[in-house]
């Protein structure tokens, strides 16, 4: 933690910090607050780069290897989601690789390319900062990251960044309406854009929609996929997929495109299921007092979207042994319906909130 603080101090040396001069503020609160504040400051600095945001967040060697385009960035982007250890390793090796060029101007850029704060998944946030704030497990790494982030300002005038930007599409350049434009810093920007293009091809054939999916699918990692699908904020995605399933070439199952289509479909299910209590909350049977009134909610489950384990769990928790609780269940191809016979109730049923 102290390393991190020092790093932050280093990074913003020159700027005044009012909090640290205030005697009444407790130390812990102060440091916590301070670091958050600094990170936000740094974030805003990065945002100052305006159009370069996608470049910044994609973690990238595009700056270094100027002539490589998005394919290059897809490789490096994956690194930002690998474990912090790997990231540390790779950053060290990158430094080693570049050390022989110490006097060349590219060295600075390599550090810049490490600077972009990726948004790590929650388990990486060990520094006590709120989720979403760019942090790293290792204090040393954070140091290098933050100091290099501060160098963005120095790089601001570098024309090279802007030349690279020309190759990258942004929301605005693709003419999406402002409500769907991304105002945050978005990792996997390119993939999100590819997914979004499904929407723009509303009139076109399944083949073109599938092409959009495949081009977004450079990132096969499932967590990333869910993120990309969510971030692309597509409306009517479920019906689009239904349309594709119905009308696209059935031989897709034998090709990569089919695999990615299944992945997108899976992401929709996953996005819907992000609330883990959803499944449990739907079923709620209460009986208060000794009255014979039982409140029953009917759940409908589509078998094709539900795993067998889920159905079995439902049956076990609520329906077994059948009828003992005054509940019985009918399973059809279109779902499961539950009904109640109050007369045969032997013991009360309680809702089971999820753990």
């Amino acid at each position, binding site marked *: 933690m102290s390393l991190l603080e020092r790093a932050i101090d280093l990074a913003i040396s020159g700027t005044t910090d009012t909090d640290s001069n205030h005697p009444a503020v407790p130390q812990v609160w102060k440091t916590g607050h301070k670091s958050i504040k600094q990170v936000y400051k740094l974030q805003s600095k990065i945002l100052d780069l305006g159009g370069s945001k996608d470049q910044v967040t994609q973690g990238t060697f595009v700056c270094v290897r100027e002539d490589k385009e998005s394919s290059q960035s897809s490789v490096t982007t*994956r690194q930002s989601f690998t474990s912090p250890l790997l990231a540390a390793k790779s950053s060290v090796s990158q430094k080693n690789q570049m050390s022989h060029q110490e006097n060349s101007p590219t060295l600075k850029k390599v550090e810049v390319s490490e600077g972009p704060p990726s948004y790590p998944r929650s388990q990486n946030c060990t520094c006590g900062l709120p989720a979403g704030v760019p942090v790293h497990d290792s204090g040393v790494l954070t140091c290098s990251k933050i100091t290099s982030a501060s160098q963005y300002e120095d790089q601001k005038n570098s024309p090279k960044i802007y030349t690279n930007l020309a190759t990258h599409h942004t929301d605005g350049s693709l003419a999406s309406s402002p409500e769907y434009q991304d105002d945050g810093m978005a990792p996997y920007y390119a993939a999100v854009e590819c997914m979004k293009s499904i929407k723009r091809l509303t009139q076109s054939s399944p083949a073109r929609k599938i092409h959009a999916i495949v081009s977004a699918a450079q990132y096969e990692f*499932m967590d990333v996929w869910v993120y990309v699908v969510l971030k692309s904020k597509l409306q009517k995605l479920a019906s689009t997929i239904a349309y594709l399933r119905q009308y696209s070439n059935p031989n*897709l199952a*034998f*090709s990569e495109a089919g695999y990615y289509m299944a992945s997108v479909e899976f992401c929709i*299910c996953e996005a819907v299921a992000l609330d883990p209590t959803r499944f449990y909350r739907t079923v709620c049977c209460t009986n208060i007092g000794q009255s014979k009134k039982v409140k029953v909610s009917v759940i409908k489950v589509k078998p094709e*979207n539900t795993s*067998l384990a889920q159905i079995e769990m439902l049956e076990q928790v609520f329906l077994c042994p059948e009828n003992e609780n005054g509940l019985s269940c009918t399973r059809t191809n279109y779902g499961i319906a539950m009904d109640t016979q109050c007369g045969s109730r032997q013991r009360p049923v309680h809702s089971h909130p999820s753990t």
Partner: protein
Amino acid sequence: MATASRKNQFKVVLLGEGCVGKTSLMLRYVQDKFNDKHLTTLQASFLNKRLNLDGQRVNIAIWDTAGQERFHALGPIYYRDSNGAILVYDITDEDSFCKVKNWVKELKKMLGEDIALCIAGNKIDLEKDRHVDASEAEAYAKTVGAKHFHTSAKLNKGIEEMFFELSKKMLERQEKNDAKVPRDGMVERGTNRRKNVVIVDEQPQRQGGGGCCGGGS
């Protein structure tokens, strides 16, 4: 829903608990690579393999379900329309074998007898740590009509044979199905929209069309 209809094209899914070596099996089979340090799947999720089986060219598309086990919605989407499934367990991990049993149950319930099953006891290079009884596993495989294989991606053992056997099984099924089609006629194939369009002339197609739409919705 239209069903895929390309000849000698098969879709195979790899199912099993995390870290039993599904990706390793696939990579060893298709690319003959093995990586000791492979942690959890980040890429390599779909691969194609062509093989020659008794003079017939067979193309199998292998769908790896790596890293996705923890997502409960995974199953039905991925194994839908597949011709074969390889259920992988780790011989050093009893729990993974129980998972295989669950998968078999689920597949049988959802896809019926349409799918060819193979069970792979992976990591036999770690024989000394074996926690799943080999004879028990084989007996279980027999009861569910699956072939059991002892495999090791590290030593490249049993993998060729397994995919070969599975392909043979799928070919047999395909031949059986092809033989069935003319006898069963349109009613059975009502769900196969594409087939209808190709084979049938206009008059009967319209009649069958109603049934088709009704089934699809």
